[in-house]
């Protein structure tokens, strides 16, 4: 038995709880069966359900992308009609944004990992968490009803007055998005409460994992921005259904007002998508270089800075729209300011590598890919923030390439890093490292072959959302299409080895990467309640200079004969060694 100072005031009796590499009871062995899964309030199972849903939507959105790229092999019609093409790019965008990118990291990985990083048993409102998932499902159902009817051909941006006049199922999809928004708001509320109230003894704000800081910043944006999306789509519905003149000039409305409303949500939404990715990068880069993250506070607070400034830059989507000149100037200026905290993060991550002990396992490979692709995404964002240049580049393939470098090269690559990093934790299985590395090469090469040519053709003038195009762009489009097939192969390889790992993979130890993160001090896969003790934290999550033992503390249990079970035996065996450590 030992004592530890967990804060300035409290002294707690602690003991070491070394996680077993062969847990007999896990969240996967408790509560078995479909019904148990569907009604579970366990944040881990809900996270997995989100992950599976997001993966399915990603497969659908990805397949749509491949169809689009195939159509663009030739300048005129290749194999589908213009109206079909317009529906495909709309669905690709809407599915990828609303059903994949927004929930991907926070709702799937965040749900699973964040409470564990806090040493909590669950999120603050477990039932609300399950409700969020079903609201997400309901939103998806609405959207699919729309597809079964007339589809959607407005682009994911629903710009008026086209969306007021379009004969496709705009109302169903906007209602789907409306419903989906509540899922996002509730998850955000849940996370904010959890982070404030559910931290294990010793986790001060300065010892919060950067992943949690990132999710905290994200949750704030979700709670504040998403209601505006709800208002916007509701107004759009009122205009279509009841003929209220809000956005349609034929009814006395203003189409530019819609764009203001839309981007007031959708620009912060870009940060809802990317900031959680930043959290994953910090966790992985520290683990695989065995080193304290350089500039912890700079990274933590820059997430909050991005969350704040991110609310003030929506007008940079509208430089050519006819908004006022003063607004345009101010939005351009603020856009550059939001680039700075992002740049700071990149420099901090690179500085973390300095004098580290770097192991290039798959999660770390994805972090490197992220740093390269996301940097390009950032620099081209600066390009688009510059007023005169944006006038030329706006609504061309340059913009398409830019946001794919940010959203796919950033968020999705970070998601892959996180998925590979936490896969052993979530499933208790290891995956084929060799295949994973091969797949990462396909992803990296395929991605750049797909999207680099789009920068060039965009700058040369190729507009986006074009079914036919002028002949001069043929070579760029064909290269891009070949790249997209390579990407498709990469994702199929990932699907293959992850499924193989799930069913036939080797068993993972509790902490295969030697991470100091609290989630790794639970078994793999974790117990139903994450830890069977209350964790106590005395070091920061990246203190690789401290011995592993000191990251495995928990409130000492009274062992006067009432405790039993395998986990306890491990504890008892370790206890004698534990006495040798002297703590603050």
């Amino acid at each position, binding site marked *: 038995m030992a004592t530890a100072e967990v804060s300035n005031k409290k002294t707690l009796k602690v003991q070491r709880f070394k996680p077993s590499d062969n847990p007999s009871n896990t969240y996967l062995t408790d509560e078995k069966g479909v019904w148990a899964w569907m009604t579970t309030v366990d944040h881990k199972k809900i996270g997995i359900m989100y992950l599976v849903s997001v993966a399915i939507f990603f497969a659908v959105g990805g397949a749509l992308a491949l169809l689009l790229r195939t159509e663009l092999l030739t300048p005129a019609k290749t194999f589908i009609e213009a*109206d079909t093409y*317009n529906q495909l790019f709309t669905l690709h965008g809407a599915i990828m944004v609303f059903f994949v990118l927004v929930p991907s990291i926070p709702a799937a990985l965040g749900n699973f990992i964040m409470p564990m990083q806090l040493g909590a048993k669950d999120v603050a409102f477990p039932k609300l968490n399950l409700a969020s998932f079903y609201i997400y499902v309901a939103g998806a159902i609405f959207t699919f009803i729309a597809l079964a009817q007339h589809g959607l*051909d407005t682009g994911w941006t629903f*710009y008026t*007055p*086209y969306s007021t*006049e379009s*004969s496709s199922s705009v109302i169903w999809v906007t209602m789907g998005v409306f419903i989906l928004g509540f899922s996002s708001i509730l998850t955000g509320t849940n996370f904010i409460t959890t982070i404030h109230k559910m931290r294990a003894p010793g986790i001060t704000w300065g010892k919060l994992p950067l992943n949690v800081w990132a999710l905290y910043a994200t949750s704030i944006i979700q709670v504040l921005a998403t209601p505006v999306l709800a208002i916007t789509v509701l107004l759009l519905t009122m205009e279509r259904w009841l003929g209220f003149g809000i956005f349609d*000039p034929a009814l006395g409305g203003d*189409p*530019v007002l819609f764009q203001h409303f839309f981007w007031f949500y959708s620009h912060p939404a870009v940060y809802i998508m990317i900031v959680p990715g930043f959290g994953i990068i910090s966790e992985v880069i520290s683990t695989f*270089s065995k*080193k*304290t993250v*350089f500039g*912890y*506070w*700079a990274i933590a607070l820059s997430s909050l800075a991005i969350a704040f400034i991110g609310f003030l830059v929506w007008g940079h989507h509208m430089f*050519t729209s*006819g908004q006022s000149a003063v607004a345009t100037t101010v939005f*351009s200026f603020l856009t*550059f300011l939001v*680039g*700075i905290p992002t740049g700071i993060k990149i*420099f*901090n991550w*690179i*500085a973390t*590598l*300095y*004098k*580290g*002990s*770097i*192991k290039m396992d798959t999660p770390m490979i994805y972090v490197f890919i992220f*740093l*390269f692709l996301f*940097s390009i995404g950032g*620099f081209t964002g600066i*390009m688009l923030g*510059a*007023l*005169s*240049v*944006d*006038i*030329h580049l706006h*609504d*061309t393939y340059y913009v398409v390439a830019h946001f794919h470098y940010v959203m796919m090269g950033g968020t999705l690559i970070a998601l892959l890093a996180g998925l590979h990093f936490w896969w052993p934790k979530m499933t208790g299985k290891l995956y084929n490292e060799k295949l994973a590395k091969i797949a990462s090469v396909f992803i990296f090469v395929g991605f750049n072959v797909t999207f680099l040519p789009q920068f060039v053709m965009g*700058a*040369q*003038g190729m*507009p*986006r*959302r*074009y*079914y036919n*195009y*002028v002949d001069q762009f043929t070579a760029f489009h064909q290269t891009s299409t070949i790249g997209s097939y390579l990407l498709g192969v990469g994702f199929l390889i990932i699907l293959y080895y992850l499924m193989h790992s799930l069913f036939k993979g080797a068993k993972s130890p509790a902490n295969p990467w030697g991470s100091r993160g609290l989630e790794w001090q639970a078994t793999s896969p974790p117990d139903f309640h994450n830890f069977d003790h209350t964790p106590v934290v005395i070091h920061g999550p990246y*203190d690789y200079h401290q011995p592993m033992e000191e990251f495995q503390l928990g409130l000492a249990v009274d062992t006067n004969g009432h405790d039993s079970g395998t986990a306890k035996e491990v504890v008892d065996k370790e206890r004698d060694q534990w006495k040798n450590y002297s703590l603050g």
Partner: protein
Amino acid sequence: MDRLFEFMLPEAKSPTADSTDALFHFINEVSLIFLIGITFALIYFAIKYRRRSEDDETPVITHNNTLEITWSVVPLLITFVIFGWGYTGWLNLKSVPDNAYEIQVSGFKWGWNVKYDNGAQTLNEIHVPEGRPVKIVLQSSDVLHSFFVPDYRVKHDVVPGRYTYVWFEAEEVGESQVFCTEYCGTGHSDMLAKVIVHTEEDFQTWLEKNGGGVSGTPVEQGEQLVQLQGCTTCHSDDGSRLIGPSFKGLWESEETLSDGSTVTVDENYLRESILNPGAKIVESYDNVMTPYEGRISDEEITNIIEYLKTLK
């Protein structure tokens, strides 16, 4: 390297493009320097500090104020430069010279209707004089469009219910591509036009020849109108199927509507279908046509109908 950057942009054909291009190159160069630095650091660290044993010990480096302030302030200063540069270039794009020649351009689904000061009209062709500033006044008769000429680095959304503008000065005789860059439905990617640059003398000749607008017998006027109003973008005159029904053989034909009823094409049906196309849609076609209510006079409708009667 310069050649790569130049390859990325189309040849600049308006003096307003110079500042845009210079800034484009500047940002590319600075970005490339940073990107090479970042990539080099990543690879160098990954090799130099590769894990040699699982017991590797790493130094504790929590932060470094000098370094962090440097890499915050230096990029900040660079972005200030970029902001100022972009802002001045953009002001130039907004400030139309006093002597600019004005042309009215109206975007519709799916084409560009162009009107000149002497009443001349063209469809999807914008004739301009060389070496003189030209102001294009933009309006839309239906949904959002966007007027984009890559060669001149100008673009502006075309918004229903308000006027917007771009200006440029064509530097050489020739043609430049115009794109619609705001998604507007089925024919969005076919909503192309050309800027055709003449010498000042040729331009004046061209204007005079085409001045005065539509003229001739009612049938001749109708034929010119279906061109200028963009009807032929979606309705062929030879029986082939485009976005809407063909004009050929339309007169007095029996058409089945989308609700299953039938209608005989007469004057009143044609008039209704021009002013309020959604009222009676022919089976297997989509309701996508812009209503011409308020955009076309009764006399013009009559002339168009007279012309359609001749397409047997």
